[in-house]
Each structure stands twice: as structure tokens, then as C-alpha cells.
């Protein structure tokens, strides 16, 4: 695959970051994982990814971080990414109702994972969100059948007029 779809993890606490990246191990082969310790760093990472002709498929983002907080960063990103709608997931224990509403309304938040998470839940969410992403972007579903939700991808192929030749 020349074109890479990244998973971006934004988290200021190193231990938590390590745990998240560890739990995402099985996706690495298909979706390279990039990490950033702050919103500012994440912004640079996003820029680098797009400048190299690749894109971000999924962002897992903490809320409370030094500097810009997670929700504000996601809102900013929503404007920046425009039609490239990367899937956005908050992984936090500390986003209040107000922030969460903000994230849903203005950043098109796709999922909220409350800390502490389980590996199983995290994997399920990543699979579901990335499946949404590749279908929305009309990527060839076959290249993701092994790692993402193969039943939904098959259903997508069934209803999207792929055919013999």
C-alpha cells in the first residue's frame, strides 16, 4: 500500500500513552500508529502525515492536557481536515458534560471511551471506527478484511455494486 492510513494517539501521560499504543499493537501492520504528547505536537504530526500524501483515519485523544485541551484540538482539527473526516475518539476520564457536548456538536466526536478502558473495548471501537472510515472514503474493502469488521465490509461490497469482469 503506498497510501497509509494512520492512527494518531494524543496523550500527555507517558504511562497511559504506552498502554494505549500497546493495546493497538495488532493494528500496526495495517495502520501505523503515531503518538503525540500534546495538541501542539499532534498538530505537527497531522501536518507531516498529510504532507507525505497519507492521512489520519482515527484519532484517540485525551482531554485534559497541558496547553490546548483535547476537545478544542478536535474542534480545530475538524475544520482543518474538512472533508477528510478522520474518526475522532475521546479517551478520558475527565471531560465534563459541557466539553463532551462541545466535542459532539463541533468536532463530530465519534466515540467516547471512559478511562480506565479495557483492551477489548478499545479494539472493538478502533475496528468499528476504522471500518466506518474506509467505507466512507470508498477504499477497496478487500485490503482491510483481515483486520477490520469483515462482515460489515462484505455487506458494503454486496451493496456497492462490485461485480465480475
Amino acid at each position, binding site marked *: 500500500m503506498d497510501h497509509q492510513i494512520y492512527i494518531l494517539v494524543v496523550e500527555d501521560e507517558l504511562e497511559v500513552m504506552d498502554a494505549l499504543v500497546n493495546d493497538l499493537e495488532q493494528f500496526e501492520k495495517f495502520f501505523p500508529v503515531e503518538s503525540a504528547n500534546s495538541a501542539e505536537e499532534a498538530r505537527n504530526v497531522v501536518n507531516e502525515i498529510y504532507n507525505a500524501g497519507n492521512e489520519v483515519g482515527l484519532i484517540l485523544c485525551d482531554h485534559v492536557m497541558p496547553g490546548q485541551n483535547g476537545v478544542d484540538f478536535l474542534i480545530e482539527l475538524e475544520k482543518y481536515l474538512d472533508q477528510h473526516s478522520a474518526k475522532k475518539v475521546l479517551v478520558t476520564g475527565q471531560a465534563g458534560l459541557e466539553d463532551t457536548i462541545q466535542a459532539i456538536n463541533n468536532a463530530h466526536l465519534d466515540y467516547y471511551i471512559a478511562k480506565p478502558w479495557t483492551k477489548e473495548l478499545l479494539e472493538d471501537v478502533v475496528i468499528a471506527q476504522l471500518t466506518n472510515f474506509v467505507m466512507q472514503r470508498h477504499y477497496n474493502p478487500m485490503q482491510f478484511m483481515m483486520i477490520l469488521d*469483515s462482515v460489515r465490509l*462484505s455487506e458494503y*461490497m454486496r451493496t456497492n*455494486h*462490485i*461485480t*465480475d469482469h
Partner: protein
Amino acid sequence: MKLNRKQLIGLIIGLIGLIIPFFLSIEGLSYAGHVALGIFFLAAAFWMLEPFPIYATSVLVIFLQILLLSKQGFLFQEDSAAYIPDAYTAFIGTLASPIIILFLGGFVLADAAVKYNLDRNLTRILLSPFGSKPGSILLGLMVVTALLSAFMSNTATTAMMMTVILPIMARIGKTDPLRIGLALSIPFAANIGGITTPIGTPPNAVVLGALSNQGINIPFGEWMILATPLVVIALLFAWILLLKMFKPEASSIEIDMSGKFNTSQNAIILYVAFGLTVLFWVTESLHGIKSAIIALIPVVFLTLTGVVTKEDIRKLPWEVLWLVAGGISLGISMKSTGLAEWIVGSIEWNSFGTISLLIVFAAVAVLMSNFLSNTVTATLLIPLAVSLATSGIAGEGFNLVIVSLVIGVSASLAMMLPISTPPNAIAMSTGTIKTSNMAKAGISIGLFGIVLVVIYALFYWPIILN
């Protein structure tokens, strides 16, 4: 647009192939034949090495024929003794030839069936009598897949059946060979099932298109009578093969297929249109209404009633129609310029004998379509077979219809590699099977298929056709 090495080679060979005949003087071949040879080279190189999508090459072929070979083109505005040019309408007309309209009808029906879940609900009903033993479930899945792919595209059928078998596969043991058997059963059954009806898969269209250029019309029902016994045997062989190669460990498996038929007004209109169309198709020899005319029934009724909308029409696989039309169009020139006859005449066919000729065509078709698109395989081989048969060079026993069927059917029996057919690619993408699994089973089916096709060509088809 970036071309890889293979594509670049294809592009260069194609362009050189197009130009070379202009600088040669081949004895026994008219000037128009030279031009057609150039177009044939280009088409073959582009279709095989795919510097461009195959449907794009098809349209290019039609366009080049108009520019270079039609009465309205640059080279042949006047009739001559050597070549009477066709009007350009003959070439663009292939885009609306009866076989294309037949496929259009099939597409509309199939897409509406998917839209209203008819395919899934039929699967649910048809699978229930097969119980829960792995062997019989496998047979049930294959029968249903083949049946659906006779009327829908093999690829869409495979995708739908994947949604049925993936949950089953998740429930059985990771090391149970049944998983591999299941994953292979669907694409194999879909590839084989496509042979059953004229609309089952595009190579069938190429066969029918070539025959209709020769003034031979095979009714829908007759095709089914010709093809179905072969499909049944090939399917049974594939079933036994997969059971033997991948002995199930699980003693019983469950299929959870809940759901019910859509009973909205639109869905019921679709069921009726589907039933009526198929009924009229299979009884064509009784009432004599051509299948392409019947194919307009679903197109008319489903659009009038809004069951199929503008959006649905836009999403039809139009590129497949282009692909088939390009092939039919190429066949026109190969015949009218005398090119096909020349190619055929340049080989000593007499030394072969009918049986070995049939074996050669079957084997070459299976081999080619393992690596190429099935439709392209049929498109490139059938004009040769047609001129071989019509020229009489190969002798009395070499029947035009039979050799075309041999090629068309053999093109669908290639399933050795993930690239052989889109259904194979889908099965492979699940990660359950290794290429070696597919290759071993696929080669067995290919070899068995060649034998089977030749036996039918010698003993069964002549009885039906005469």
C-alpha cells in the same frame, strides 16, 4: 497516473503492436486486415497487462475501429473488393446490442434484489433444509451460492455469502480445516454458478454476442439446458474435493439466519418482476420472445414504479457493459476484415483433429483466465474459434456453437489464484486461506473442468443442439 513496470510494458507493446502491421505486408491479409491486426494487438496487450482499466481499453477499441475501420473513418471511405467497411454505427451499436440489454435487465433485477434483501432472504430459506452437519451445510452453501450467482454477479453473491459464513467461521475452532473449506466453497460455487444462465457472468455474454454476430440465437432456456448439467457436476466435484481436502473437525455447526422477507409494496413489486422475468426467460423457446426484449420488463416496471431510482441506475456496473461491448465490437472487425480467417488459416489445424482442438481450446481458456479477466479471455479466444468453425478448416465435426461454449464455460472454471476472479480475491482477503490452499483446490477443479467440458462438448451438447 502512475504505471508500474508491467503496465508500462503493456503500454509499449500495445502501441508498437498497433503500429507494426502498418509497416508490414502480410501475404493473404487485406490492408484492412492489417489495421484490424494492429487493433487486436493493442487490445490484447492492454487487456492482458492492464496499463489502463479493462473497460477503458474496450471503449478505446470501439473508438479506434471507428477511426480506422469504419466507413466514416480515415482509411476506408469507399467499398473495395478487399474490404467493405462497416458504418460507424455498427461499432457503437454494440453498446446497445441485445446481449448488453439482456445484461442491463439482469443488473437492474440483481441490484433491486440486493436493495430489498431478496438475495439474503432466499439464502435463509434455501439453507434451512440442509441441517447442521458440516458436510451438508457446505453443500447447502454451495448450492445456494451457485443458484444466486446464476442471476446475480458472482462477485456480489460472494460478498453476500461472506456475511453468512464469516460468523460461522468465527464460531468454529481456529485450526479446524472446515474454515478453509468454507472460505473456498463460496467463491468456487459462485464462479461455477455463473455459468448456469446467459446473464450469470460476462463471458457468457461474449459467447452469445459472438454467436449472434453469426446469426445464431441461443434462447435463455436452452443455454440453461446446455449449462446446468455441467454446473451440477462441477459443483458436486468441488464439494467433495473441499470436504476431502479440508476434513471438518466440528461435528455440527449452526447458522444464525434470522430475518424476514421485506413486505413493503416496492419489495413485492420487485418479487413479481423478478419472478415474471425469470419465468419468461426460461420459457423463451415456448413463446419465442427474445430474452433481450424480456430483459426490458424489469427495467420498465421497476423504474416506472420507483422501485429502482435514478441513484440506483447511476450505480449500475456500466463498465461491465462497456467491457462486453468492446469485445463484441472487436469480433466484428476481425471477421469483416478477414483477419480472423487469416489467423486461423495460418495454422495447420488438420493435424489436430476435433477432440484435441476442443481440449486445446478448453485448456488455453482455463489457463488464460486464471491470470486474466474471464471476459477478456473469452473475448480474445472466441473470434478465433468462430472463424475456425465457419471457415470449415477444422472439419465437419467442429461445431461453432460447441467450441464457443467450450471457451465461455472454461473461462469460468479458472479459480486457481486470488487474481483469477474477484470472488477468489474476496475469499482470500479474509485471511483464512493460504494461496497454496486455493491453488491446490483450484487446479483440481480446473483440470476436472477441462475434462468435463470436453466430454459435454463431445457427447451432451450435440444432442441438445441438433
